[in-house]
């Protein structure tokens, strides 16, 4: 990394920067799994409600089987999130620790 352009130094910032070598941020989990999981659960619940919707519910929504459609959409979205995480797992978090602690 080129060092010809170091920004101005400040003791308070430098202190914090030095501590960053101990950082545990690499242990952070991947949020895609949580989003995927919650939306799959929502998708299943709402789709099931949609399958058993009565005439009154469909009429309330202007004749649209909104629970069915919204449920299926959320299910697909949740599965896509999980698929994305499976196909492209998070970058190896080493990138953060390779910085010199200048």
């Amino acid at each position, binding site marked *: 990394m080129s060092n010809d352009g170091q920004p101005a130094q400040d003791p308070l910032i430098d202190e914090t920067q030095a501590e960053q070598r101990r950082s545990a941020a690499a242990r952070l989990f991947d949020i895609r799994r*949580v*989003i995927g999981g919650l939306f799959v659960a929502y998708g299943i619940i709402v789709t099931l409600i949609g399958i058993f919707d009565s005439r009154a519910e469909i009429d309330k*929504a202007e004749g649209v089987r909104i629970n069915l459609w919204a449920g299926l959409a959320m299910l697909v979205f949740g599965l896509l999130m999980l698929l994305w995480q499976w196909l492209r797992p998070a970058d190896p978090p080493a990138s953060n620790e390779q910085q010199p602690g200048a």
Partner: protein
Amino acid sequence: MDGDGLRLNMNGLDYLILALYFVTVLGVGFAARRAIRTSVDFFLSGRSLPAWVTGLAFVSANLGALEIIGMAANGAQYGVMTVHYYWIGAVPAMVFLGIVMMPFYYGSKVRSVPEYLRLRFNRPTHLLNALSFAVAQVLIAGVNLYALALVMQALLGWPLWTAIVVGAAIVLAYITIGGLSGAIYNEVLQFFVILAGLIPVTVIGLVKVGGWNGLMDAVGDTKLGEAGLHAWQGTGSTANPLGAHWIGIVFGLGFVLSFGYWTTNFAEVQRALSAKNMSAARRTPIIAAYPKLVIPLVTIIPGLVALVTVQGLGAESGDLQYNNAIPLLMRDLLPNGVLGVAVTGLLASFMAGMAANVSGFNTVFTYDIWQAYIRRDRSDEYYLRVGRWATVAAVVIGIGTAFIAAGFSNIMNYIQALFSVFNAPLFATFIIGMFWKRMSALAGFWSLLLGTLVSLSLYLLYKGGVVDFNSDLEESFWGAGLAFVTAVVVAAIITPLTSPKRDEELRGLVYGMGGVDLKGDVLAGDAVWYRSPVLLGLIAVALAALFYIPVF
């Protein structure tokens, strides 16, 4: 309050959906705890997050329910002109932040926006900004909390204090435990939940009024009339629903107010500072600009649908206020199931807004007030503990201000409007300081102080009835513009009379002084052309301009 008029018919499955959300949000907070060992982990997520996460958190931090409910209300009250708040009043400033300002924020390694002022100017400027930011954040957190409680009370019948305490406790738990990572991860989750809640209302609303064309025809027959369908026509004078001239819209809203809010508000910028490298930090607000382009579809359209379908919408008080546009549509159109998702989405947006204020506050309080002025040279663990206690304090004070707001809801709205005007002199000070290396430390202090005093005085004169404007909005245009000009003039007068800062002190902080490395820690994959911040930013601005064409 207003009886049971807005009460939703929630059943067990709706509550199951809501409960699942609460459990997930808390789980994210607990799971993020493993990733916290240093203060940077707690306050800035260890500067380790990918751009799509920080970008969605950036937009979500702004999607507080005041924003969603407020923009739907504006849609019903002012019509299509409300898109100005998005396409000219947000997107250009977000792109500017990413392309032009972020290299100085991220490259100088400052831990907060006020800290930039400490390095660029001096400690008095820093303390002034840190204190006003901290006070504003807890007050706004309280307003958010109170608004949350009002909606819970009206929709679900929960007592006001139960809703306030439950909402506060959940936000408190996931930030104290999971730090900024807990807040940001939840914001990303909340972003999707908010959309999942708003899209069904929008779709069914459009079906009900006969699609886009049906909606346009119907709006033409309401009290808004034809004027409610155009963004720019009629802005040659102030005889339009918004009461704003195009000059006011472009310079007041599009330049001073919007740049002031998006580029200097630490509750937003903090999301970008937590990105893993310079490229990701610069792309954060730009990635956020893309959802911002289309969010009006799910706020303004429901507002217009409500205007057309809800008889008598627009009352001064009671259930038929403009602010209830979205809750009224939820009541009328959503069956159980998607109703639960929609209520969860509203709750999620309240939490996202409040969490952004609280996580901005704890960082500024710890790094910029406690460490800089009260207890220096303690261990990093010490400041981490201070940060956790500051979070608790912020939420407790937020509960306090929420109860004050309950007594004086108008006053709290005024306070929020006031702080938005404070951003204008702050932006002026920043932008001059970033591009004019000669600007001295004293000039920075006086620009900020006098600019703020000018906007404050104008606001008080307006509220006191001494000065007259067409609307609150017009006052804020003028207040912000006047404050901006004051800050510029003060800087131009004081700088030549005072000594400049040495060049090496300005490295990485001021344009043309070197010290900014745009490619420093970039990963191989970030160099590809479709991740170029400049290209992505220009496309976002071009889209914003194109989107105006059908509603000109």
